[in-house]
């Protein structure tokens, strides 16, 4: 595991993308195939199954370090990362080892069926053979989550450099539900018949936010527009008489949305469609909140199927009759999609997401203003001539979202962040006024600059009224403008509402507490937009 730890450390020690790619490519050049396969897996969110709970790890680490558990728990939020807290707390190792990354992962996997004494002995024994850097890596294997500033894209690029393969082709090979247990490095990366996997999705084409007026895009006739739906991006694959539904995060969601199985009755084999899964009331999408109830459920109770049935709003055709269409212009793909879906009855679980006609950018701006009425969060603008890119590429796909809704709220609780933001207060709870009370209604974590986070952190430390574990109640004094994308009624929240994508838009230094918005204001927004 030494080489992998060195790689991890090298990546961690630089902020430069080129240096990270170089370190990764060098690793892929020299590591054994089994380690390479696991490295690819780890950097594409395929971590080994967790065999030990983090609760146990905390207890064992504190015990080994000879400190009370509460002291370990107090240290954790300050470090901001559990794997790191354990690595830093343990006493120095007494031995060393030469085992590979794969060997350690095998050791951990073998613990799945072991009793607790064996698990504990194995972990303590491992810790005792590793220096601080290696322990951190090992603990990351135990706790999952390998976020080290290596995007999947960067990993794929390094792998392309090391193997001499085309980056986009590699990105496609890496898609799907493979794990190091079900494949080999050779089968995944090198074998000619890489299309063997029927279920393998294409890498999703991703859009950038439009930051300027659309006039900058040039001639309107060279562009197409659609609603930007607030659902779950999904890829529907019909191959070999089966169907598969993938999320953008490469979760196989086929069983979660059984409605889409009927697509096989309407569409031919060898079809792959990109679209948005939305809860559907028969004519229009239901709010995201309705869909949310179905996320994370492996099986769906009958009532939910009835209350929040889903359809796929299709906006792109990636494969037709088994042929990969991605290199063709969007206008062509879109025409084929409309032909394919045009004759389907309204009861089919796949509908075409309509193109929005426009002659001028001014026309389109008018449509955008009506997005909320259409249950959309804005527009997508796509180049008529553009191919279907693998991943995020600037230039052909733009999202032109609505301006967010906003409300001025009072900060009442603060909590420290994690990772890069450890030791800064970055997680806040906000309230609206209601008579003499303050009613909490949302949390927000993002939107301030680092300098503002430092400033509010210093203030929180001096103005803490009460502590509840890691949460501090602070003097209600500061007003923030909270921006959000949607609002809906929620009996689970004390305020009766839940917000979509809340974040801090501005710190309203100019607003005193009594000018913050009220619960009535919030309810008025709910009545209008909920």
């Amino acid at each position, binding site marked *: 595991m030494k080489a992998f730890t060195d790689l991890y450390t090298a990546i*961690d*020690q*630089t*902020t*430069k993308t080129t240096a990270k790619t170089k370190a990764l490519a060098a690793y892929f050049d020299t590591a054994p195939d089994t380690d390479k396969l696991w490295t690819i897996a780890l950097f594409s969110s395929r971590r080994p199954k967790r065999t030990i709970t983090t609760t146990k790890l905390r207890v064992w680490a504190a015990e080994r*370090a000879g*400190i*009370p558990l*509460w*002291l*370990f728990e*107090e*240290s954790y939020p*300050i*470090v*901001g*990362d559990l794997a*790191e*807290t354990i690595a*830093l*707390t343990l006493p120095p190792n007494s031995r060393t080892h030469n085992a590979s990354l794969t060997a350690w992962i095998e050791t951990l996997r073998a613990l799945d069926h072991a009793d607790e004494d064996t698990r504990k002995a194995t972990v303590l024994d491992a810790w005792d053979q590793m220096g601080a850097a290696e322990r951190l890596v090992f603990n990351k294997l135990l706790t999952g989550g390998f976020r080290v*500033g290596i995007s999947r894209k960067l990993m794929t690029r390094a792998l392309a450099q090391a193997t001499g393969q085309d980056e986009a082709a590699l990105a496609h090979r890496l898609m799907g539900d493979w794990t190091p247990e079900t494949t080999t490095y050779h089968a995944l990366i090198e074998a000619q018949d890489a299309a063997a996997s029927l279920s393998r999705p294409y890498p999703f084409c991703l859009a950038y936010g439009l930051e300027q007026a659309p006039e900058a895009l040039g001639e309107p006739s060279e562009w197409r527009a659609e609603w930007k739906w607030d659902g779950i991006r999904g890829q529907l694959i019909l191959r070999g008489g089966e169907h598969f539904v993938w999320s953008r995060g490469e979760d196989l969601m086929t069983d979660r949305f059984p409605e889409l199985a009927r697509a096989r009755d309407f569409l031919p084999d060898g079809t792959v469609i990109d679209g948005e899964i939305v809860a559907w009331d028969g004519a229009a999408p239901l709010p995201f909140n309705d869909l949310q109830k179905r996320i994370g459920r492996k099986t769906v109770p009958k009532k939910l199927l009835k209350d929040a049935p889903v359809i796929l709003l299709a906006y792109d055709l990636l494969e037709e009759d088994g042929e990969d269409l991605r290199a063709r212009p969007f206008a062509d793909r879109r025409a084929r999609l409309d032909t394919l879906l045009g004759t389907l009855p309204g009861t089919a679980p796949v509908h075409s997401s309509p193109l929005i006609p426009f002659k001028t950018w001014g026309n389109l701006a008018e449509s955008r203003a009506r997005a909320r009425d259409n249950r959309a969060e804005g527009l997508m603008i796509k180049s008529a001539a553009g191919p279907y890119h693998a991943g995020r590429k600037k230039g052909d796909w733009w999202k032109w979202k609505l301006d967010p809704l906003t409300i001025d709220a009072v900060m009442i609780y603060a909590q420290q962040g*994690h*990772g*890069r*933001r*450890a*030791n*800064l207060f970055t997680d806040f709870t906000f309230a609206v006024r209601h008579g003499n009370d303050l009613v909490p209604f949302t949390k927000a974590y993002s939107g301030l600059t*680092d300098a503002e986070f430092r400033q509010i*952190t210093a203030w929180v*430390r*001096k103005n803490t009224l009460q502590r509840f574990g890691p949460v501090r109640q602070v003097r209600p004094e500061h007003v923030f403008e909270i921006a959000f994308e949607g609002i809906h009624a929620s009996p689970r929240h004390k305020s009766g509402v839940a917000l979509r994508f809340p974040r801090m838009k501005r710190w309203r230094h100019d607003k005193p507490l009594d000018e913050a918005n009220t619960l009535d204001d919030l309810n008025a927004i709910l009545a209008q937009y909920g």
Partner: protein
Amino acid sequence: MVLEFKPQGIYCPAGDFFIDPWHPVDRALITHGHADHAREGHNRYLATDIAAPVMRHRLGDITLDTVAYGEVREIGGARVSLHPAGHIPGSAQVRVEVGGEVWVVSGDYKTTPDRLCTPFEPVRCHSFITECTFGLPVFTWPSEADTAAEINAWWTANAAAGTYSLLGAYSLGKAQRLLSLLDPAVAPILTHGAVEATNAILRGQGIALPDTIHVTPELDPRAHPGALILAPPGALAGNWARRFRPASTGFASGWMRLRGVRRRRALDRGFVMSDHADWSGLNEAIKDTGAENIYPTHGYTDIFARWLNEEGYNAKPVPTEFTGETFEEDGA
């Protein structure tokens, strides 16, 4: 009480003086010259003779009386002496004895020796007011030699690649400690004005430091390929540092023990080197005082006090503005 906690800072009623007060007072005992301890506006100052030149440089024309380590002063009804704290040259712990009862204020301290400071000395007392900037078990320091080797290896590799090494360090204390550990054979060492000013003062006191080249507007960076540039952390991100390209950036501090802090600063390298005691250093220092009453200040005071209470001490976190929990402060 021999010492009390007042809004202006730690106060001795018997001697009518304050220790490291943060608001102007008549008589102030100063543990060391860092800005959060040696503030402006007091009528009379008392510090060690070694700390005096830097304080005069930073605070200007002040009324400053000095003592040697261990020298006893009677101030009112209090017997006062200053003892080595090992934090930076001239830094002191303050021992205050009134009617046979002894209190010690640690100031900032580290228990492991370096090449510049008079080494930390434990002072027996009944009550110990101790800093605890790094009072958590996650803060344990590697040996100075290991970190020095790491920094020199980084510098050597940069120099070989034709890259400058920009090393951030507080201009008083940490910068000179690093200078004493750098290998001058690698390439020239350049310094920011704030660092060089402190260097000049310490050299004037007879403290040996390797040769350094002051970065002036006229200096041509190309004349010093592979140089290591020592500058205050704030200067690394600004225009000042831009003349040295390409550069790898590093910072030496106890906070570099935490990846989150390293990443937030967007540094290439973080080197763990602190002028404060680590977890075991704090615990040993407290034990060696023999004190029963411990008052943790400056740091994770609540957590550290709870730990000490469970260890059998009578510990109370110091209330008031002392609740620094200050982060990345001067000299950390």
